[in-house]
């Protein structure tokens, strides 16, 4: 018994002395309806950490269950008792708004692998907050630009009635120059779209833009395909990511969607990422996985230059973004949000697997609309 006790104490001591020098806290959604997104971000992130070969990075991962109150508790624990240097992982904008301002206010760095609410890009921007994915409006703006480029003049637009849904319609309308034949807010979490589809049928639209992330998009696309309405559909990549395309099936074929990433973007980093991700996890990566992977690589690139304890130097290293992104060129705007090219993709079938193919550029080197309001 005594020997055992000694061994445990020794092991514990070893653990503290060999403790990693950098501690990262990841809060993401690993259970409940939105778990697929969090799991992809985590897997992409951990793949990059493993590939870096660095054993001085410790990642603490916790599940926020998609609940803002849980996320706040976890972040308090990570900042105050785990003493993490850097935090990341949050998927949903409402959770990010609950966590990020207090985390960066306490001097911890936060790298967002997904959520990009407009508040944090404009007036609420912070020197310790970096978004590696996009500002929320970006992919919708790209959909509007794409609609112009193919000559749509009368769109029916639709999104759930919550902040990100309202941002989506605002984003689409920002660059879209045609008329609107209808504008509908659905309920968040709605599963039946028969009523909206009937309105689309009666509207005389020449195109349908929708933002329905996750299960909502699956339901809508299946019901839309079955309704016999054949007005072309466009949307952001969130309803067409690798995780849910298989559940939509044929109903998604040929649909155009906008994304900052796709598996066929031609650069060596991306090719290696797609191959190693598939080998490691047995599935194709989604855009969320690519965002997790890029976030970790940005972080590692900054750690090569500076230590997080030296805040100013580390911040400059992050700002420089000297890493190989799966998206090719990557740089930050003045508000620490990406300036990047957004593509139009089309859903295709490769063998038995539904996936996306790039068919053109929707917006070249696009920055977000809120940067001017950011005083850093």
């Amino acid at each position: 018994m005594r020997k055992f006790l000694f061994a445990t104490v020794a092991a514990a001591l070893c653990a503290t002395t060999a403790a990693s020098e950098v501690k990262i806290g990841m809060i993401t959604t690993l259970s409940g309806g939105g778990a697929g997104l969090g799991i992809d971000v985590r897997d992409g992130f951990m793949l990059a950490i493993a590939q870096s070969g660095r054993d001085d990075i410790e990642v603490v991962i916790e599940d926020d269950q998609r609940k803002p109150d849980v996320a706040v508790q976890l972040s308090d624990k990570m900042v105050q008792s785990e003493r993490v240097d850097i935090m990341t992982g949050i998927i949903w904008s409402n959770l990010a708004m609950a966590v990020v301002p207090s985390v960066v206010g306490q001097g911890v760095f936060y790298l967002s692998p997904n959520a990009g609410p407009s508040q944090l890009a404009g007036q609420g921007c912070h020197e310790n907050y970096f978004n590696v994915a996009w500002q929320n409006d970006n992919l919708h703006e790209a959909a509007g630009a794409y609609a112009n480029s193919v000559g749509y003049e009368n769109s029916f637009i639709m999104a759930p009635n919550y902040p990100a849904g309202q941002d989506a319609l605002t984003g689409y309308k920002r660059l879209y120059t045609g008329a609107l034949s209808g504008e509908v807010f659905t309920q968040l979490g709605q599963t039946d779209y028969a009523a909206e589809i009937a309105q689309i049928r009666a509207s005389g639209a020449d195109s349908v833009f929708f933002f329905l992330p996750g299960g909502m998009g699956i339901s809508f696309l299946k019901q839309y395909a079955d309704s016999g309405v054949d007005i072309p559909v466009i949307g952001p990549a969130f309803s067409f990511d690798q995780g849910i395309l298989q559940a939509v099936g044929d109903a998604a074929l040929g649909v155009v969607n906008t994304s900052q990433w796709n598996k066929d973007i031609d650069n060596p980093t991306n090719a290696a990422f797609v191959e190693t991700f598939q080998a490691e996890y047995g599935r194709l990566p989604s855009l969320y996985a690519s965002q997790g992977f890029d976030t970790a690589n940005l972080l590692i690139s900054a750690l090569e230059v500076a230590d997080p304890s030296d805040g100013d130097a580390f911040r400059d290293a992050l700002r420089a973004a000297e890493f190989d992104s799966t998206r090719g060129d990557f740089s930050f705007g003045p508000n620490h949000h990406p300036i990047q090219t957004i593509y139009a993709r089309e859903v295709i079938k490769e063998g038995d697997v539904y996936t996306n193919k790039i068919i053109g550029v929707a917006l070249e080197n696009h920055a977000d609309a809120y940067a001017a309001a950011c005083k850093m």
Partner: protein
Amino acid sequence: MSSILVIEQILNGLQFGVMLFLMAAGLTLIFGVMGLINLAHGSLYMIGAFAAAAVAGATGSFFLALVAALVAAAVAGAIVEMVVIRRLYNAAHLDQVLATFALILIFSEGTRWVFGSFPLFLDIPNALSGPVTLPGGIQYPLYRLTLIAIGLAVALGLWLLIERTRIGIQIRAGENDREMIGALGVDISKLYTLVFALGAALAGLAGALVGAIQSVQVGMGEPVLILAFVVIVIGGIGSIRGAFIGALLVGLTDTLGGVFLPEIFKLFMDSGAAQKSGSALASMSIYLLMGMVLIWRPTGLFGARA
């Protein structure tokens, strides 16, 4: 706003209503007969959908998928009743809520463990896919018409079962006086297991039928569960007829409210604001309906007089 659109929306509301009825019927039976609040009813709906998706994926047959959904949900229901629920009949409602809430978590994470975190694929069978043209030139999906027909057939079958068969007499007797039918020699615990399995099977059937046009994913049952509770409160707890009327009312109110409230608001405000406030009010409409029904009849439309 054309009459075609109005008729189409009424059909949509009916279809939504009859699917809600399948959920609410089981819930109200279980509450009426056993006095049990079963929060895990949504999990049985999810089990039906997952069983259907798995079997449809393996065999390609939608019919077999429906059979699998019925069987899987009924078996899960019977096991849950025998292992967990049986201990709760004499417990307080709060204990029942706590235990069945735990069941939701166990079923959700168990399903994730078996099937993974990503939604499954379940599609409409080819024979039922695509729209048909109804008299008057209305294009309507054949599958949704089929759902309405199945829902009405199940409602009729349940009515016959409850009103015209020996089991039905026992169920009704169990609602009224459980000690007495025990004393008359009816095996009450077997009856309870049977009722629970029947309720579960109906939920599983609804999950499989609706899963084909929605997404089959973990947690899909809980939003429907909330609506099903609204239905049985409106209809009167324990009443199958009440559940049927309540389900149709909720289905029609929800569908028509979502479409027409923003249109009405557009008459006196600009389009964007009308959309936002109209759809916000629409999402409250069924709860307003419930409130009004309860003011008018505190025990629900067909509830027993308190």
